[in-house]
Structures are given as structure tokens and as C-alpha cells.
């Protein structure tokens, strides 16, 4: 169509995907700037970069969600227009989004045929899909019960449904956006086996991730994006995590947390027989015992949804529960009038919630307001009994933003104007500078850039070294293993076991996260 004289010659060894000079701007933000890559057929190609580096925009252009302002897409050497998702599917591209696009109330089969039905009636499509799924399950370890409702499936199985959807549409190029974010290590291993199988069948796979370890493990080549530009494309075998991190951030990054061994003191928090029910009356925490001493970080590992959120929210006074919780030897009110966040703060419990944009801050409010929330009763913030002292709050906000390296350090900006990492720094500054006895921190680095992760981890370790107790909840095993002094693994509302981070490994923790206890099984 373009009259490119080389088209004929390229056909033989044409890359599965070639992008030439792709650019895309949203208003004044240049999300993609003159991006060109080639992905060879039958390879696994990784794309890494910090949040906002433009990876997702680029893949959305490939899947027809956005149209590029400039540039060309070639699929198997042929210039291809991708104005919508239908066109992407026709071009043989399948996409597995980070947040699955499944209908929870449908069966697996219904989800697979949706949009790819063979005719106006469902019956023929359903029986055809049933057969195709059987074949795919056999060929690629993609077993899922075709008649199960999606909402009853585990996250790992739901992801398989997404892959099956793409394969059912005969995709030969598969794009996966942050595919392991919600998986246990075991499930991730299984996914990688599936992907290798697909690769062996000649499929081309693109993985977007921020996890360097996965890039090193599964990809053949890797491209690094920074600020909308493709900064490098290298063979995975010829690079290292350190080099990739440096390429992503643009400076040297310390991947491991530097910390000295803990010197635990007296017990700060003691939890006995804690139980929590959610608003539907389902028991989420089913009797937990744990303790944290001064100068110690206890990490709670587990797949999301196994009661960690409820645990941290009860301790933070957001949910109600039953059992005994002692803070500095004094019982906390778990279900009565003093079981709220304000009473907890008065007792020296600071809380950096998991869902930072809903519970941690008000996005439409300014940074200086967000830096005072939860402590607005502090006399230092008040001129007299009625009026607040905005000047004092503003002064304090400036200092906190400087000490926590919040960028840009402008207190009058709205919360939503800051990146995820800087939002988290605002919340950490607010909670840590109150000098709490116990810091509850949930998913401290979810959606946070590598550079900011380093800073946040350093601050948490500093608090520990100052003799405070820290309860860390995270679904990132790497984070749990590098920050914690002790690790407790939660599964189905219970603590499956406690391990010393120096004497365990991902494999063992992964089994515990999946509810398998080696010690009792052996």
C-alpha cells in the first residue's frame, strides 16, 4: 500500500512487529516520542520502564485503544492500520490486560466467545469453543473448567482465560501487561511455562513489566523506556538487572535495601486471637496471633485477598474485629467507641493504608491539606478554638515535602497532580514525622517508581532503627524479603507460618502463600 520497495524482500524474515517512529501526545504531555522497535517472530520481548514512561500507551496504540499521532506499524512486514481493537484482533494481536477484561458472571466459555461468535445463535459457537479449549488446554497447560463462572476462579486461572480468549481469536502476537503482579510465585512459574510453550509454537510474545527478575528469566530481548522514549534495546543474555535499572531511571540505583541486623527491644504490639468479619459477614481474619517488638519490621506476605488488608485495617481502626490487641501492654478497643482511626493515632499508631488514593489522601485536596489529615485536631494547627492556622500548616508542609523529597515541592498542588510515588511520600511524611510507636504500612511501593522505592524503603528502615515497630503488608515478595526482619505468611485469614528472611526462599514462601505447609506436610 505504501509502495515500499523493500516489502517483497522483507516478507521472508520480517519481524512479527515493527514500529517506526511512533509518537503520541496527550495535550502537552509527550507520552511516546519517535519510538522504533522490531520484535522478531517466535521470541519473547520485554518492555520495561517506570510508571509513566509510556509503555502502556505504546501497547494501547498496538491494540487500537489510541491512535498514534505519527509513525507506522508493520505486522509481519505489512504496514497495518489499527484504528480499533477489532482491527488489532484481525491483525493477529491479542492482549492480556493488567486488569482483566472478563465478565465475572459469565462462564469461561461465554467469556471466550464474546465478540468472536460464529453466528447470531450461541449454541454452535459454544460447542466449537469447547472443543478448541480442550485442544489448547492439552497443548499449552492452559487447563480451565470451561463451565466455571469466572468469579469463582482464582486470579491465575482468570489470567489463563484471558490468554485463551486471545488464542481462540487466533492471535499469533500476544501482549501481556504486568502479568505477574497478582500471581503467586507458583502461578507465575506456570505462566512462564505456558509462555515458553507458546513461543515454541512460533507465537511472538511481548511482556510489559517492572520486575527485572522476570525480564531476566523469561525474555530473549528487552527494550527500556524512559520518559516516552525508547532508551535501549538489548539481548537479555547480554545485560544485567543493575544495568537495566540504571537505564530505566537514568542513574545508578541500589536494588537491595541496605540495612543492619535488627536489635529488637520490648514488645510494642501483641495480637491474640484476632478475628475480623467483612461487611457481608464473611470471616476474613480467622484467629491471628502475632507480636512486633521495638526496632523490628514484621512483614506479612500473601496473595492479595487473604486477610492482610483486614488485619491492617483493624489495627488502624478502620474496621472492627474481635480478639485481643495490646499496644505497649494496653488493650486497644477493637469494636467499641474508641475503635476508630483517630483514637489509634492518639495512641501512637500511624497507618499508611494500602489503598492510598482512597484511604490515604483526598486527591482533590492540596498537598498541605493532605499532609495534615488525620491530625487536624493538633493544637499546633489551630490559631484558636475555631480558626485553623493555615500558615503554620503550610510552613510545616514545606518542611515535610523537602525532607521527604516530594517532587514538585509545591504544597498548593492538588494530591492528584503528584505521581504515585510522590503521593506515597506525602502520606509517609505525614505519618512517619508524627514519630509513632507502631507504623502500619500497606503496599508501600505499589505503583511507585524504582527511584522512589529506594527512598521509601530507606525511610521505613530508618524508623525501625529509631526503635519503632513496623508492620509491613505487601504482595511483592521481593519487598517483603528485603525489608522484613521476620516474615509471616497469611493464607485464608490465618498465619501459615513465620520465617526468617535469611533462612527462607521464594519457593518456600510461595508454597505457604498457596496454603501448603511443608513442615506439617512432611
Amino acid at each position, binding site marked *: 500500500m505504501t509502495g515500499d520497495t523493500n516489502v517483497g524482500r522483507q516478507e521472508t524474515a520480517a519481524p512479527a512487529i515493527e514500529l517506526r517512529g511512533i509518537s503520541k501526545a496527550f495535550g502537552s504531555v509527550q507520552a511516546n516520542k519517535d519510538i522504533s522497535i522490531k520484535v522478531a517472530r517466535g521470541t519473547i520481548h520485554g518492555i520495561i520502564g517506570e510508571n509513566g514512561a509510556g509503555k*502502556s500507551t505504546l501497547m*494501547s496504540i498496538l*491494540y487500537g*485503544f489510541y491512535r498514534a499521532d505519527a509513525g507506522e506499524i508493520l505486522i509481519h512486514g505489512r504496514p497495518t492500520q489499527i484504528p*480499533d*481493537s*477489532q*482491527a*488489532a*484482533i484481525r491483525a493477529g494481536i491479542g*492482549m492480556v*490486560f*493488567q*486488569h482483566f*477484561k*472478563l*465478565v*465475572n*458472571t*459469565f462462564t469461561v466459555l*461465554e*467469556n471466550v*466467545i*464474546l*465478540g*468472536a*461468535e460464529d*453466528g*447470531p*445463535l*450461541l*449454541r454452535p*459457537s459454544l460447542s466449537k469453543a469447547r472443543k478448541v479449549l480442550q485442544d489448547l488446554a492439552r497443548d499449552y497447560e492452559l487447563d480451565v473448567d470451561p463451565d466455571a463462572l469466572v468469579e469463582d476462579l482464582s486470579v491465575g486461572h482468570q489470567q489463563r482465560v484471558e490468554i485463551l*480468549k486471545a488464542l481462540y481469536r487466533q492471535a499469533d502476537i500476544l501482549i501481556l*501487561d504486568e502479568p505477574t503482579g497478582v500471581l503467586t510465585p507458583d502461578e507465575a512459574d506456570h505462566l512462564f511455562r505456558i509462555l515458553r510453550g507458546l513461543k515454541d509454537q512460533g507465537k511472538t510474545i511481548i511482556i510489559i513489566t517492572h520486575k527485572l527478575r522476570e525480564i531476566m528469566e523469561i525474555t530473549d530481548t528487552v527494550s527500556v523506556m524512559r520518559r516516552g522514549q525508547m532508551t535501549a534495546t538489548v539481548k537479555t543474555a547480554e545485560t544485567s538487572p543493575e544495568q537495566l535499572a540504571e537505564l530505566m531511571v537514568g542513574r545508578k540505583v541500589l536494588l537491595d535495601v541496605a540495612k543492619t541486623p535488627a536489635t529488637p527491644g520490648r514488645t510494642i504490639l501483641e495480637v491474640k486471637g484476632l478475628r475480623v468479619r467483612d461487611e457481608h459477614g464473611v470471616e476474613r481474619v480467622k484467629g491471628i496471633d502475632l507480636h512486633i517488638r521495638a526496632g523490628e519490621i514484621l512483614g506479612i506476605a500473601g496473595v492479595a485477598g487473604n486477610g492482610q488488608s483486614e488485619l491492617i485495617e483493624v489495627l488502624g481502626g478502620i474496621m472492627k474485629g474481635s480478639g485481643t490487641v495490646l499496644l505497649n501492654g494496653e488493650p486497644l478497643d477493637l469494636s467499641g467507641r474508641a475503635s476508630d482511626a483517630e483514637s489509634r493515632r492518639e495512641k501512637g499508631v500511624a497507618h499508611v493504608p494500602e489503598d492510598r488514593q482512597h484511604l490515604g489522601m483526598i486527591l482533590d485536596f492540596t498537598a498541605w491539606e493532605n499532609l495534615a489529615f488525620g491530625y487536624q485536631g493538633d493544637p499546633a494547627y489551630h490559631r484558636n478554638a475555631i480558626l485553623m492556622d493555615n500558615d503554620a500548616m503550610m510552613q510545616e508542609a514545606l518542611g515535610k515535602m523537602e525532607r521527604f523529597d516530594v517532587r514538585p515541592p509545591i504544597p498548593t498542588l492538588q494530591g492528584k497532580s503528584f505521581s504515585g510515588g510522590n503521593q506515597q511520600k506525602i502520606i509517609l511524611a505525614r505519618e512517619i514525622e508524627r514519630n509513632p510507636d507502631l507504623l502500619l504500612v500497606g503496599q508501600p511501593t505499589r505503583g511507585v517508581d524504582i527511584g522512589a522505592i529506594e527512598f521509601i524503603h530507606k525511610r521505613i528502615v530508618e524508623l525501625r532503627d529509631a526503635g519503632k515497630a513496623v508492620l509491613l503488608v505487601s504482595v511483592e515478595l521481593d519487598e517483603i524479603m528485603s525489608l522484613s526482619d521476620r516474615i509471616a505468611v497469611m493464607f485464608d485469614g490465618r498465619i501459615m507460618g513465620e520465617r526468617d528472611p535469611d533462612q527462607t526462599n521464594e519457593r518456600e514462601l510461595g508454597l505457604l502463600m498457596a496454603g501448603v505447609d511443608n513442615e506439617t506436610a512432611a
Partner: protein
Amino acid sequence: MDYATLLQILDSTLRLATPLLLACLAGLYSERSGIFDIGLEGKMLAAAMATGAVAFYSGNVWVGALAGIGASLVFAVVHGLASITFRGNQLISGVALNFVASGITVLIAQAMFGQGGRTPPLDGAARFNPITLPFADALGTVPVLGPLYREVISGHTALVYVALAAVPLTWWVLYRTRYGLRLRAVGENPASVDTAGVSVARLRYSAVAITGILCGLAGAYMAAGLQAGFGREMTAGRGYIALAALIFANWLPWRALAATLLFGFLQALALRPDVIERTLQISIPVPALDALPYVLTIIVLFGFVGKPQPPRAGGEPYVKER
């Protein structure tokens, strides 16, 4: 209560349930696609007025019904534009359209006929006339079932049978066709439909159009079946009752039939205070009986009757995002 009286009440039940059933199924299509429609009432009212006026001039009830469907579709398209294209608040759009319909129907009827906002009485071919089903008289002599067939099943106007047929048809469309699969999907998770390469907006517009057609039939039945002409606010909250029935029915077609029959039964009872007095041996004031369907509506909306599971994406405009 004797058998003849029971049959009379059941006969009224079916007649009174018909507009509710049509409106309830109308709402089902829209809400299953993720567009809440509180404006069933307004669409019925507009359709009733258009049917009354056009049936009067043309002398043909079917021409009138077509006009009613047209009027209802205009309202449906406006609601679609507001909720789908412009991503507005669906409740506000629906309420606004109800107000518009309430005013504009009386205004137009008054301007056209000058009879205090009514349309002139319809008769003959300008009304829906009862259809006697085959063998109704012959089978009428069979004990028990015969009279049931003759008095309750037979002898209704065409739209009653259309409404009844719409129930299995809707079930079949929802669960056996490609369109139904996509319709249910778009109301649960529009992103799943979008990423499968199907247009969310087109699907939702089609559902809203079906809602318009069914509301048009409901309004036409009000003006030319149940009554003989349009009168101000003649729908009397039936659009809201249909919404309550839809929630009661948990957005399922067969349960919609059951729910609207229940509401129709209560309305039929209100027409026969004498029967209640004889059966229960107490005298209930007529206004209290009239209020029964509305009281049940409130009870349903309070959620006393099981936990409803509305389409999960209902009420939210779809914004493409990753």
C-alpha cells in the same frame, strides 16, 4: 369468593399487568446494557398521548401505536444521547425526561383538541379490541379449565398477547443469541466487550431503542387498550412500578412476568373492594387499596425482598481506559 369472581379478578389482573410487563421488559433491556432508565414513565406517557391523537385522526389503532412507538423512541434517543454519547448522569436525564413528558403531553393534547389536555374518546377500529381465541366458546363448557380459558386467557386485546409472548422471546434473546450475550456483557463489564472489538455505544443504543419500542407499546396499550384515549398523567406511576418490579425480578425475564402479575393483581383487587370485604369480613377504604401497589413498590425498593443483583456496570458511563 366464588369461582366466577376469581376469574373476573384474574382477568383484570392480566389486563392491568400488561402495561407493567411491557414497561418492565423495556427497562430490562436498557438496564441489562448498563443504562439505568428511570424515564419509563415519561416514555409511556408520550406514547400514550401520540397513540391517542394519531389513532383518533387515522381511525386505525395500529397507526396510532406506531406513532406511540415513534414518540417513545424520541425520548429514548435523547436519553441515549445524554447517557451514552455525552456520559451524563442517567438518573438526572431520566427524571428530566419524565418532567418534559408530563408537561408536553398535556400541552400538545390541549393545543390539538382543546379538551383540557385529553385526547378525544376512541372507539371502533381506533381502539384495541378483544380477540376471542379459537374454541373459547366450545371449550367454555369444560369444567374448571373451560371457564378459565374463556374468561381469563381468551378475550384480551392483541398487546396483552404480545406482552406475554415477549417474555419467552426476551429470555431466548438474552440467553441463546449473540446479541443477548453481548447485551449482558456490556451491562456487567463494558471493557470486556470493548476489548473484544465490539462497540459499546452501538450495543447500548440498540438496547435503549428496544426500551423505546416496548415503552411505546405500553403507552399505546394504556391509551387505546386499557382506556379509550389519553388523559393527563394517565400512566399514574406505572413506569416506576415497572422499575420496582424489575428490581423484584432481579432483571430476569420470567421473574419480571411474575412480579408484574403480582402488581397487576393488587391493582385488580383495588377495583373490587366488595370482594375483599366479603372475603376478609372487614371493610378497607378504597384509597388504601389503591395505595397497595405503591406500598409494595416501596417495600421492594427498600430491599426487603431479597438482595437484588443489578448489572454491575449499571448507571456508569463507559470511559475507555486501560
